């Protein structure tokens, strides 16, 4: 009888010690992230470019890098347009609050699906069901800082750094699996400038993105977010992930 109790106490103690894991959180870093999140949350529309490089671990354990350039436009809570051109081809997402369309320019085929009512719910659902990825979408969640605080044990402010002639706040968030470095621009507006994600347990592969050409609160016509089918494009089916 004593043995199970002993095991139970070990389990309980390990659980308690886990829940009391040390966290190193720099208030300056959190302030910068909060400020950036506030500015993004204040936008009614936004357009920006994002240049991304993604490492993929090959079967022979080599890192293969691919590049892409994406132009993203948000408008209100229920409009999104994403155009991507890169080494994996050219594609686009259109979301008008009712329908989501993925169009592959190279294959000239597209998928149209009924979508949730808001952009962020749509992003969640499309990622969960079909593995669609939306570059840098995390920055546009209203509780971005809370997400960072929840998922990382260490959040440090590494000082001011100049990046591409812009003064930036350099922030590091780290946990056992991932290091995220974020450079937040201090040029007029606190907006993300650059970030690098390092997957420490996957051959240190990296996901790296640079933001540019921010246009804040542009007046974007709603019809832009409505997918107009090219004459010869083909509607195809899609397989749900699970």
């Amino acid at each position, binding site marked *: 009888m004593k043995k199970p109790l002993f095991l139970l106490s070990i389990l309980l103690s390990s659980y308690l010690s886990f829940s009391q894991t040390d966290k190193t959180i720099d208030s300056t870093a959190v302030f910068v992230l909060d400020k950036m999140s506030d500015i993004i949350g204040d936008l009614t529309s936004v357009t920006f470019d994002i240049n991304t490089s993604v490492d993929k671990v090959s079967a022979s354990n080599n890192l293969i890098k691919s590049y892409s350039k994406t132009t993203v436009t948000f408008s209100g809570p229920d409009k999104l347009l994403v155009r991507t051109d890169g080494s994996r081809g050219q594609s686009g997402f259109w979301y008008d609050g009712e329908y989501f369309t993925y169009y592959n320019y190279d294959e000239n085929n597209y998928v149209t699906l009924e979508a949730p009512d808001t952009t962020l719910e749509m992003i969640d659902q499309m990622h969960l069901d079909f593995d669609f990825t939306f570059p840098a979408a995390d920055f546009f969640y209203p509780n971005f800082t809370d997400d960072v605080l929840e998922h990382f044990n260490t959040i440090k402010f590494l000082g001011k750094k100049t990046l591409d002639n812009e003064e930036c706040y350099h922030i590091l968030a780290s946990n056992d699996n991932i290091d995220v470095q974020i450079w937040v621009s201090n040029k007029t507006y606190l907006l993300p400038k650059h970030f690098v994600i390092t997957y420490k347990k996957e051959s240190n592969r990296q996901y790296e993105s640079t933001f540019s050409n921010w246009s804040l609160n542009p007046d974007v016509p709603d019809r832009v977010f409505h997918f107009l089918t090219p004459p010869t494009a083909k509607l195809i089916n899609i*397989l749900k992930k699970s």
Partner: protein
Amino acid sequence: MTAHKINIKHTLGLILIFIALIFPSDLLAQRMRGGGGGMRGGGGSRSVSRPTHTPSRSKQAARPSTSQRTPKRSINGGSTKTKSRDFSNKKKTTNRSTTNKTRPNTNNRATTGQGKVTNRKTSNVKNKTTNRAGNKSGNKIGNKTGNNNRVGNNTRIGNNNVNINVNNRNTYVRGGSRAYVRPPYRYGGFGYYCHRPYFYHPYTPFYWGPVYHPWGFFVATLATTAIIVSITNDDTNEKEEYNYENGNYYLKTEDGFVAVQAPIGAEVPEIPKEAQKVEVDNSTNYYYGGAFYEENKDGYIVVPATAGTIVPGLPEGGEEVKIGDVTYVQFGQTYYQPIQVDGKDMYEIVEVKQEG
């Protein structure tokens, strides 16, 4: 004594309300300081929290009335944050709600409130069913030797249901014996194995010549040379009879006959000369109308597709389906990967394996 206390409380409450009415902007300022982006950022919550008018503010004159302009809505409803962040405590904060979701729900946002207009054509969403590669459970040959000499179409019996759709039972894939050098394409817990690289080309049904009838093709009568092929369904134990003529299989309907896909296990004495030879695991099969035939002493028998087989064209009845980053052509449980061989567009049968 108790009544006296209540009176004092009431008096204090009235005084506070009076002060609040005199200084509304002060209260608003306090709320904004503590409220975070949700209060400032707008969205649905902004219009609720903002007073309809603030006469004590000098900036009000320059700002248009909120009731007259179209409310601008934030792209994410405004930032939100937990109100208490104690950075002096280096231990893990426990006051934050944790859910299994990796991302927050954003239900505090004003939605359009309009019903979804469903007049736009949308894609079919496919669900991955259990992988049956290499799992032989198809059809049995009803009468291997007797049917070949049966001629005529006037004795059609039984099932009159028209089936112009792809019959999943006839589309399972046998696993290939060759090891795959290429890593599979992984999606949704399955690995999609191919010997050749993905090379997209649009799916256009192949036409096998003048005697070929695509699936769903209707004919009123069949020639007297048509034969009846009897197949017993293992699952239902029911006998199904097909009419075979020149590489085409037909099911009888009330008005005539409709072309369907070849049933696995069907044995026929001959196949059209347009049938193409395809290499399947170091042996030769014949491919015609989307069906694979093995030759034996009595003729040809319809066999399941084998993973890794390369075919030059696909019949009608397939559907292009996006699986992650690739687009395959699907016939029931068979996926064909578009490839290119010596500059020619072809397809390779994909082997789908559940990943551990």
